[in-house]
């Protein structure tokens, strides 16, 4: 491997999205990310859709495969003291440790920061869980769905006259790995300059709430509770998503945003200056905010017979902000994502050739690379323990035969 983090290894405990997505940033720039896994307690993404007929069993999970490319997998049964001892040797050898178990799990094995730092003073380690490592609710169990509800994202998503909905993918499951990557990278920079390590406690709920600072200060300043506004904005109108011509059985939509009065005049011209758009009573944002429903209805009458791509192209050419609403399939034909190389193919032993995603950053002097598919469970146990840890062959064989690598 080459790249910014060539020679840097990160040991990863845990599963799902919130932990493992964070280390992908480093893996895509050359870090050796080593996942510690076990057949006894597999990552839930490996078993999410597992049936007795799943080809490849634990190694055939699509969801695990798309999130864990570029990593190595070491199988260690942490219910066995020998397994814990090997994990400890690895933790003391690598450049950083990342974990997203429930609080207390790492301490139970003696793999927590307080235990490890006694033998490695400059250890860098990050722990992320829903509510953080301290406080009365630290053991509260949950996935991103709960994180998103607790942090306020669900309350803000949906229509004012309806019940809240879940933002797809939960939002906290994607904000927290990004924050974890930032914290871990900043800790590595700090160590590089000072020689000092640290432990980082990232609460996924707190990270989400920090992003929603506007919601919090609007309440603490004015007692006002921001709520669901559909797609409308308090500052601009129209600001919405409009139905286009269906494509077979697919519903198609276009998003249109008019930021100010100049945009409004440009929109009218692009539509051929229909009488309703020339109404002087709609010339200002304040006026349009008061008559948004009427404008939305008129606009949708116009978009209904068109494709979203045609509407977006026409309006963008006229200097008005608009874009098609794309589904997961459309993204693979999106010219801008293709230009940036968002999807990268890998060859997986069970799943064959499939795309994985990289992050949204393009650097002028280094490029993200995806060299390997997600690992099979325990695929790299021998390589990591023998080559990286220097474990003698007889010890490796003894542990293997004793079932420590299950």
């Amino acid at each position: 491997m080459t790249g910014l983090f060539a020679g840097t290894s990160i040991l990863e405990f845990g599963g799902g999205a919130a932990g493992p997505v964070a280390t992908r940033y480093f893996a895509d720039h050359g870090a050796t990310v080593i996942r510690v896994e076990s057949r006894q307690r597999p990552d839930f993404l490996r078993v999410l859709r597992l049936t007795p007929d799943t080809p490849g069993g634990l190694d055939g999970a699509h969801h695990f495969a798309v999130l864990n490319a570029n990593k190595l997998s070491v199988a260690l049964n942490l219910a066995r003291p020998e397994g814990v001892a090997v994990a400890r040797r690895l933790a003391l050898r690598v450049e950083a440790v990342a974990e997203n178990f429930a609080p207390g799990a790492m301490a139970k094995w003696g793999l927590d920061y307080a235990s490890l730092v006694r033998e490695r003073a400059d250890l860098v380690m990050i722990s992320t869980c829903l509510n953080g490592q301290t406080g009365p609710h630290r053991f509260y169990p949950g996935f991103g769905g709960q994180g998103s509800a607790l942090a306020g994202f669900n309350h803000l998503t949906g229509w004012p006259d309806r019940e809240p909905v879940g933002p797809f993918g939960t939002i906290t499951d994607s904000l927290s790995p990004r924050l974890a990557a930032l914290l871990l990278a900043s800790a590595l920079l700090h160590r590089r300059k000072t020689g000092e390590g640290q432990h980082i406690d990232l609460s996924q709920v707190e990270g989400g709430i920090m992003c929603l600072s506007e919601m919090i200060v609007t309440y603490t300043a004015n007692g006002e509770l921001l709520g669901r506004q559909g797609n409308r904005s308090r500052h601009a109108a129209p600001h919405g998503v409009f139905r286009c011509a269906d494509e077979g059985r697919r519903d198609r939509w276009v998003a249109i945003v008019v930021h100010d009065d100049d945009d409004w005049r440009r929109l009218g011209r692009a539509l051929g200056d229909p009488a309703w758009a020339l109404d002087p009573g709609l010339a200002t944002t304040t006026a349009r905010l008061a008559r948004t429903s009427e404008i939305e209805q008129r606009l949708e009458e116009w978009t209904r017979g068109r494709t979203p791509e045609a509407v977006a192209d026409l309006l963008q050419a006229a200097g008005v902000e608009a874009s098609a609403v794309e589904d997961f399939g459309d993204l693979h034909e999106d010219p801008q994502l293709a230009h940036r190389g968002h999807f990268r193919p890998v060859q997986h032993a069970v799943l064959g050739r499939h795309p994985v995603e990289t992050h949204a950053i393009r650097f002028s002097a280094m490029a993200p690379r995806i060299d390997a598919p997600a690992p099979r469970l325990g695929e790299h146990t021998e390589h990591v323990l023998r080559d990286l840890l220097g474990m003698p062959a007889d010890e490796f064989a003894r542990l293997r035969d004793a079932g420590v690598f299950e």
Partner: protein
Amino acid sequence: MGGNLDGIRVLDLTGEPGFLAGKLLGDLGADVIKVEPPAGDPARRRPPFWGDVPDPERSLVWLALNTSKRGITLDLSRPRGRELFLELMRRIDVLLESELPGQMAARGLGWAELQTRNPRLVHCAVTPFGQSGPRAGWRGSDLTVSALSGNLYATGDPDRAPVRCSLPVAYYHGGIEAAVGVVFALLAREESGRGQHVDVALQEAMVMPNIGSAAMFQMIGLRGARAGAFMRQVNGVAREIWPCKDGFVSFALRGGPARVPGLVAMVQYMGEHGMASESLEERDWKSHNLNLLTQAEIDDLSRPFAAFFLTKTMAELYEAACARNLMLAPINTAREIVASPQLAAREFLVDVEYRGRGSLRYPGAFARTTSAHPEATRVGIRRPAPALGEHTAEVLSELGIGSTELARLRAEGVV
């Protein structure tokens, strides 16, 4: 006062899409200097205002995500402003901006120019679609970049349009992504001695929130579908957001080893209130798999849960969830968040003092660190959001601009 980014000096030219990026770097200890035009950032003129008093120093959109920054004004459209900006470029580590591609270059302030002034500079641009490509020139904001991510299509009620979160989530994703890019570039500079350009696209940043579903399309063919307060299962939909006595809670009837103990505990809890049906109490939860049930069976199973939640408040249900390990969460508003005992125990909310305006309660440290020198790794708000031009004299004098020079710049309207 240190932090992991102690000693890093950042010039932050961004508008709303980039506010969070600079705040994060500041919360990690960087010296972040917000640069505004003399009239102030447009966000300062947007409601809601603190105390409902329309005033550029009271816009809550501005105050929310510009903490941990100092502030100066500078008119980049004037030749002298541009010169001063180039002078500042020699003395900083990071430039953050969110201009549309080509706009900085059109003013002679593009990466090529800046790089010659300061080869160690990290120049990070946050834009809707990135610096190049077929849509580089397109306009975009939270709603339109989310539209092109797959995430919007899959969010909302099935009988209505795809719907966004009412606060700009794309800016939060993109802001963190930009901060990651900056720190990666700073790490690379430690090796190479050179800075680089960092190009962050909001559209692309909004694809990852689908948590793999975008890439999985090629394998499983699912384009995404809106299910509102429900979640799609193999044979139908199951409720995940339920009305309760005073609001809503999130709770799933999905099975699997991680969730079954919570389902069993919930039925026990309902039983204690005489609200678990016999069939619920006798159900074999170990083999429970929502994907094997018909819609009618899912509806039957759901009914007693729906009835029970209506008898309890969000606070009662969450208290029980924490005590009994139920995977249930309240659909919190700011009111519940501000009153949270967990956040209180972690001293997460902090009061930030604004001279002459009082104090404002904020979300504080987004992470906690333990280290040999805790102050050297502290994360959290360093200072209030700056008043317009509050630190102009201070910053320019640190950068070697004397008071006579400053007076002339003021007279010319450059600062």
